[in-house]
């Protein structure tokens, strides 16, 4: 069943967190039913230096703002959004 297949998530990074990571796009393998917070923990396991950005991050799944308890569908794009400063 599909339930046992890994879920691939594309994580997008911008601005300060992208510079700190030295990457703008990271593929993460997660499991079905995992939330944004779960995927974030997987990312931090790989890149613990990014933890300092977490308190002010917002999240977007497939270009819609979500809370970190939103479930991440397979193939989703999860954007980590630092406090915005456009205008």
């Amino acid at each position: 069943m599909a339930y046992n297949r890994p879920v691939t998530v594309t994580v997008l990074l911008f601005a300060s967190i992208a510079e700190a990571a030295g990457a703008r796009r990271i593929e993460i393998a997660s499991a079905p039913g995992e939330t944004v917070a779960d995927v974030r923990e997987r990312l931090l396991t790989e890149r613990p230096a990014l933890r300092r950005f977490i308190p002010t991050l917002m999240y977007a799944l497939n270009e819609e703002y979500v809370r970190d308890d939103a479930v991440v569908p397979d193939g989703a794009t999860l954007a980590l959004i630092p406090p915005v400063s456009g205008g």
Partner: protein
Amino acid sequence: MLIKVTTDELRPEEAIAAVASPAAGAIDLFLGVVRDNNLGRRVGYLVYEAYPSMAEKVMAEIAEEAKATFGLEECAVLHRTGRLEIGETSLLIAISSGHRASAFDGGRWLVDTIKKKVPVWKKEVWEDGEAWIEGPESMGMQQAPAGLRG
């Protein structure tokens, strides 16, 4: 509706033309421009970065909401990215409306909301360093208005 994130120079005529309407008695135009100082520091230039596809989507949603809330005829919202020099336009908004009051009120709300929600970031570059600005106006730095913080 003209909604665009672009590295090209922003031209007010383009935005004004995009909101022209026979029902409009007022067109409100707002230009956000690059200032040579911030919080007491001399700024050399700014670098803007966006999540372009989402930024355009959020800008369109905000513009639709402004039209519905303030009874506007049309809106144009353009944001420039890349390196911008002092005096260049980073944000260009035009609004047409039947009367001036809704054009001013809608324009003010539109600019304020764009600065809170649209995924665009600016980096200040000084003579002796640089830093990403984590906007105090961002909803990410405020009490979660739409419960979007985890």
